[in-house]
């Protein structure tokens, strides 16, 4: 185990940036959700890395947080994709810039 903590943090920062840029730049709602999942995963990587490098890794705090975070990410993906399917049924599109009315 020689990789320093900074490398994991930089990887997580790059992953977060890619997810953020994708979520802002893509038009398809599915890809926006995918970008959100990438950002969530970057945060999870930070939790695991800080847990492994902490002075009390026996406490398992970061690990537990990541387990709960993975569960929440799965629930978010399920709800988000169900919303995409429901909107596609009404509007016949999955492009976020065409979801421009609340009713209908």
């Amino acid at each position, binding site marked *: 185990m020689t990789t320093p903590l900074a490398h994991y943090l930089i990887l997580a920062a790059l992953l977060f940036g890619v*997810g953020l840029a994708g979520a802002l730049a*893509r038009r398809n709602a599915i890809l926006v959700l995918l970008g959100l999942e990438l950002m969530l995963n970057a945060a999870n990587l930070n939790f695991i890395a800080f847990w*492994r*490098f902490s002075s009390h890794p026996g406490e*398992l705090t970061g690990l537990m947080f990541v387990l709960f975070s993975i*569960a929440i990410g*799965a629930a978010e993906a399920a709800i988000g994709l169900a919303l995409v*399917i429901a909107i596609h049924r009404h509007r016949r599109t999955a492009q976020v810039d065409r979801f421009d009315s609340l009713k209908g």
Partner: protein
Amino acid sequence: MLNEIAFLLCATLTLAGAVAAMTLRNLVHCALCAAGAFAGLAAIYLQLDAEFAGFAQLLVYVGAVAILIVFTILLTRGAEIQPAASPSWRMGVTVGALVTACLIGSIAASPGLHGSPPQTVQAPVKRIGEQLMNQYVMPLEAIGLLLTAALLGAVIIALREPPKPEPPAP
């Protein structure tokens, strides 16, 4: 040294998968690349001695979320070639690059991030289970409730609405 090479391989897989997932035109290719990125992250978790989180990541993200995304792509006929990006894609990429630059700058400026980790880490599944049943039992119950609500909500949202009955003639 070997550890560094393994980290570099996993990091390259993760980042390449993420970039490809956010830039490719065909949505099915995007979903497959995202699954690769999630698998690379799981490998990094394993490298960090977090076996349980790594396998949970594999099961949930590579197994479930990727399949769910592929199903949604097929149900919304998104497999056709997409327009590349929204007209304001430059703004999105600029914001992403700025945030990344800020994060990397503050990581580089932080002291004490270059030390070695503690040599031994005990995170067997038995201890995780004990902690889940003692210290984290309330969050566990809340997560169970949340997952049930999400399951019901997803089914209700995606359910086909029944045709509206004709309004009675006055």
